[in-house]
């Protein structure tokens, strides 16, 4: 009964409104210029589904502009205005030269010229831009040709901008802008002569860029003719205001109708946190109950609806869509305005929620990675609160729950990797419900077992923690137990100086995952040299991950100390300058696929060259010997030999070969557990006394490091002198024998002149892992990685890096 009364009232009001003619444009003449024309390359085709590129039925700015222009023309003429429209078809022939458009406005003596356009903003912006003929008020630039500032153009452009910006169906990325066209063209477009359609114009005029047609939600809206009508109506209202031509006697109801929770799945950009993310409802039906006027939304993914030219009053708007709960809204319409009613409908969910899939879905004896997320997928979008409360995992795991795909997917992300080799039980209690308040009919649960690995491990590095003689131009090499995810390596692995200042990497030097799978690696150099004799650190964040997302978790800090490496004040016995002086000694080599010695000019510290010794082993107990054809010094066991070595991080052992008559002796110089230049020395006191030995070459013994199979070692200036010149740790290196290193099952330690009291094995983070009073330590149960072995003697405590590989 009430609705009938209201309807009668509306019939009366509507008839009154129709008969009223409040506007008077009878003496106003306006030029409407729908920008562009045709379906050509400059007519701004934006490709949106279901249309292909170039399809005239799709979005074209030229077509959209024309439709707005024709609608505006109709409104103005109905109000008595004279309208000069510069084109009436969307054809190339009607795409007039700008000079002709200007001439038409001038010769017709119009009171205002409006050039209708839409804009482009790289698909991520949407705002109103009005460009009036002239300059910004604060523009002090001296233009080649003066342009008088147009107050009138600016005034009406501001009115237009404000009205367009009042549109609440769209979502704006920024407020409106009103700019002088010459200032804007110069500052934004790099064109100092302004826009052609405003040059030579002798009446107020502007270009209206009403919205951004390449912001895809707006593209879809602009495909709706009634949405374009709203823009034309805003122009019309602006003219009513500017020319004081009276108030529009009717009002309008407009809005868009969308799903209340489900979001658009297509990947095109939507402004975050706006209704543009929500799914628009195609084919939804809106009804004004008082008049029975209906509006059905189109199939073009915009949800737009418009009821035009309504008598002022209170209306009731019913919104319906298939599989959605209908809603009715009370809307008050005022003259000369648009009453916006954006509607979010709730979907009808008429069956209980259930889990339709889950992850990890791995049955024994298979197991899941410890880095896995727990994912539940539902048949309906779920109520966040009840579903979150219903979730549990045993043993308890700290983590966060998020929802995806419009609340259809629950994702539990553990804060840390799960425990190794552990049976987990995931449960979702039946109290989980969807927004229509239906709960699950029964509890849901599943189990899985994790693998025996829950950290990404650093196996070896150069510089290693505690390295002392690191060259000032180090080649950083970090090797992990799995292929790395490289997305965050640049930011999560840093080198800092003693003040904590990060040093810049040379990005062109970065090489990732160059070691053989399954290992992972990152190699890099710094942009600038380090300072000699300073402390530095490599910081490896806990967020460094491998390819399956397993993180390091506990940050790693590798301390190292730099050195000039170059030793120049001792007698030189070999300069490595002459080609052909070293060659493979096949008789003294075992298990090699190839090995060469060659003069090298690219990596050198002294003179013109170094000597490159390259090798590739085919078996585990391999060794390669290089002999010199020019044995050039003889020494006794009281001497010290020093050598500049460009290491290959293979972990293999470099030895010196000496001969005295038939007595062949090998002296260990160093382990090749570094990359790049270092200086190593060895006292020859292991040689038999009272004999002179001739140096005859080098030998490399394969160890069991992960990089031991092949390598390239460069040698430069070898020195022979009387007293060791290196620091105490280096001296210790010559007295301590730790083998094997890298080690797998046991590690043994020998010291030449002291007794060992005990051995302690520490993690790189300083955690004591195990200790023994023996000189042999069982490391079978220690995970692969780099550790610190502390050796306590009667006099000293010495720390030494130990690589464990299983």
């Amino acid at each position: 009964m009430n609705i009938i009364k209201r309807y009668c009232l509306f019939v009366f009001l509507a008839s009154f409104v129709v008969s009223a003619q409040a506007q008077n444009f009878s003496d106003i003449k306006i030029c409407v210029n729908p920008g562009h024309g045709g379906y050509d390359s400059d007519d701004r085709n934006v490709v949106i589904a279901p249309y292909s590129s170039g399809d005239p039925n799709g979005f074209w700015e030229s077509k959209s502009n024309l439709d707005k222009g024709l609608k505006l023309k109709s409104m103005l003429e109905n109000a008595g205005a004279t309208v000069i429209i510069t084109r009436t078809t969307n054809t190339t022939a009607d795409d007039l030269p700008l000079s002709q458009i200007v001439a038409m406005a001038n010769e017709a003596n119009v009171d205002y010229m409006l050039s209708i356009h839409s804009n482009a903003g790289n698909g991520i912006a949407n705002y109103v831009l009005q460009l009036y003929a002239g300059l910004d008020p604060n523009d002090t630039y001296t233009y080649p040709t003066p342009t008088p500032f147009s107050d009138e153009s600016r005034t009406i452009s501001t009115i237009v901008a404000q009205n367009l910006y009042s549109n609440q169906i769209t979502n704006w990325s920024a407020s409106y802008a009103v700019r002088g066209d010459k200032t804007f063209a110069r500052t934004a477009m790099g064109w100092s002569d302004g826009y052609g359609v405003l040059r030579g114009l002798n009446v107020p005029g502007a270009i209206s860029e009403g919205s951004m047609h390449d912001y895809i939600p707006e593209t879809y809206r602009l495909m709706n003719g009634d949405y374009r009508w709203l823009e034309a109506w805003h122009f019309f209202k602006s003219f009513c205001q500017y020319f004081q031509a009276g108030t529009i006697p009717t009002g309008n109801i407009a809005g868009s109708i969308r799903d209340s929770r489900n979001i658009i799945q297509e990947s095109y950009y939507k402004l975050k946190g706006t209704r543009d993310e929500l799914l628009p409802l195609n084919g939804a039906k809106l009804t004004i109950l008082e008049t029975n006027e209906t509006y059905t939304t189109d199939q073009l993914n915009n949800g737009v609806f418009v009821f035009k030219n309504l008598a002022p009053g209170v209306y009731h708007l019913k919104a319906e869509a298939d599989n959605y709960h209908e809603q009715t809204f009370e809307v008050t319409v005022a003259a000369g305005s648009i009453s916006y009613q954006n509607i979010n409908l709730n979907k009808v969910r008429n069956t209980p929620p259930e889990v339709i899939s889950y992850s990890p879905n791995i049955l024994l004896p298979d197991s899941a990675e410890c880095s896995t997320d727990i994912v539940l997928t539902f048949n309906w979008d779920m109520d966040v609160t009840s579903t979150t409360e219903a979730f549990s995992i045993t043993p308890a795991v700290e983590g966060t729950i998020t929802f995806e795909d419009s609340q259809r997917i629950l994702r539990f992300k553990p804060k840390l990797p799960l425990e190794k080799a552990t049976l987990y039980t995931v449960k979702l209690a039946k109290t989980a419900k969807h927004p229509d308040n239906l709960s699950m009919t029964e509890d849901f649960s599943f189990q899985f077992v994790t693998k025996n690995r829950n950290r990404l491990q650093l196996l070896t590095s150069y510089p290693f923690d505690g390295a002392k003689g690191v060259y000032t131009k180090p080649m950083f090499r970090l090797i992990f137990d799995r292929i790395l995810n490289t997305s965050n390596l640049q930011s999560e692995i840093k080198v800092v100086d003693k003040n904590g200042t990060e040093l810049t990497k040379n990005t062109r030097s970065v090489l990732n995952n160059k070691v053989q799978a399954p290992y992972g690696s990152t190699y890099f150099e710094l942009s600038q040299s380090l300072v000699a004799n300073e402390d530095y650190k490599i910081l490896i964040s806990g967020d460094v991950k491998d390819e399956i997302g397993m993180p390091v978790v506990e940050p790693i800090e590798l301390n190292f100390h730099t050195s000039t490496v170059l030793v120049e004040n001792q007698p030189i016995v070999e300069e490595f300058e002459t080609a052909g002086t070293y060659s493979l000694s096949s008789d003294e080599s075992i298990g090699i696929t190839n090995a060469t010695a060659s003069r090298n000019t690219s990596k050198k510290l002294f003179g013109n060259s170094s000597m490159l010794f390259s090798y590739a082993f085919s078996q585990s107990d391999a060794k390669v010997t290089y002999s010199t054809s020019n044995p050039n010094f003889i020494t006794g066991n009281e001497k010290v030999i020093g050598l500049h070595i460009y290491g290959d991080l293979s972990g293999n052992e470099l030895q010196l070969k000496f001969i005295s008559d038939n007595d062949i002796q090998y002296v260990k110089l160093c382990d090749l557990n570094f990359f790049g230049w270092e200086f190593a020395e060895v006292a020859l006191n292991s040689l038999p006394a009272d004999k002179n030995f001739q140096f005859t070459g080098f030998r490399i013994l394969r160890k069991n490091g992960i990089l031991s199979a092949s390598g390239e070692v460069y040698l430069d200036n070898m020195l022979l002198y009387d007293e060791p010149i290196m620091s105490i740790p280096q001296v210790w290196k010559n007295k301590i024998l730790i083998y094997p290193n890298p080690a797998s099952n046991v590690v043994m330690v020998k010291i030449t002149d002291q007794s060992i009291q005990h051995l302690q094995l520490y993690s790189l983070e300083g955690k004591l892992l195990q200790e023994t009073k023996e000189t042999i330590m069982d490391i079978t149960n220690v995970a692969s990685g780099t550790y610190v072995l502390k050796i306590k003697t009667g006099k000293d405590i010495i720390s030494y890096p130990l690589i464990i590989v299983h």
Partner: protein
Amino acid sequence: MKTFKICLLGLFLIAGSLSAQNVNIVKRYKVNGNEVKGTCPVLSPAGDKLLFTSENQKGLWLYDLNTKELITICESEGAGYAPIFNADGTKIFYRKTIYQNRRKLDAIESFDLVKKQKIEMISPQRNLAHLQNYQNGFLVSTDRKLLKATFGKTKNNVPPYVCTEDLKLVVYANGKRTELNPTGENNARYIWVSLSPDNKKILFTVAGKGTYVSDLEGKITASLGYLNAPVWYNNDYVIGMQDKDDGHFITASKVLLVSLNGKIKMPLSLENEIAMYPSASSKGNKVAYNQLQGDIIIVELDVKP
């Protein structure tokens, strides 16, 4: 009124090197001086004086090509839109645009170059069409009525007056107003209409179609193709511009001389300039145009009959 003495730099570029049958370019030079920058130049009948305006036709300045004197005629809005000289070049007639209640009205003023005197000849009107030289004054239509405004006694032999009214081509002749539609196109929009020096032909452009010449009855006698802002050089030649744009900006434009018989189409501007809005003086053998960035160029021609 402010008077400037400035120099005219005779920038001799090309003399006689370009020729199209009986048309030769004798000289091309830029009118010198930073003050002489603007658009829409208008040459006096003798070609010795030059009117120009700002980009939006606000203000009007006169430059004497002989004395190199610059005179500010007016700083009003609309003053630079299609001003004309009288026949002997001693008077200028120009409009003065005002807005009443945001409606555009145009008055017509005269400026006597000898007496340096301004007179309002027509009070502000709506829909004032463009001016056409007539004796010592001008003809103009407003709201479908032809007005005559002259100094001194007006003779009875009023020539035809052609103009556009709401983009329709209109001829006032023998006391009668006639709307012509020479191309016969529905909704044809006519711009840049003018009467030939011998008062027998009409030059006009149809937006989106091209530029034509017709007789006074609207019978097309010459089709000149794409030629914007055309003006008569003499009864046989027309000067116009071929401008290009990308929908936003003017990207190129050249000024051409075109013969009505279709035999001559000769560029008068250089390839590397954006040349627009020409004006012509056949008596002075000159064409003037502006470059997009405001320099004004004079081209002197040798046109043999």
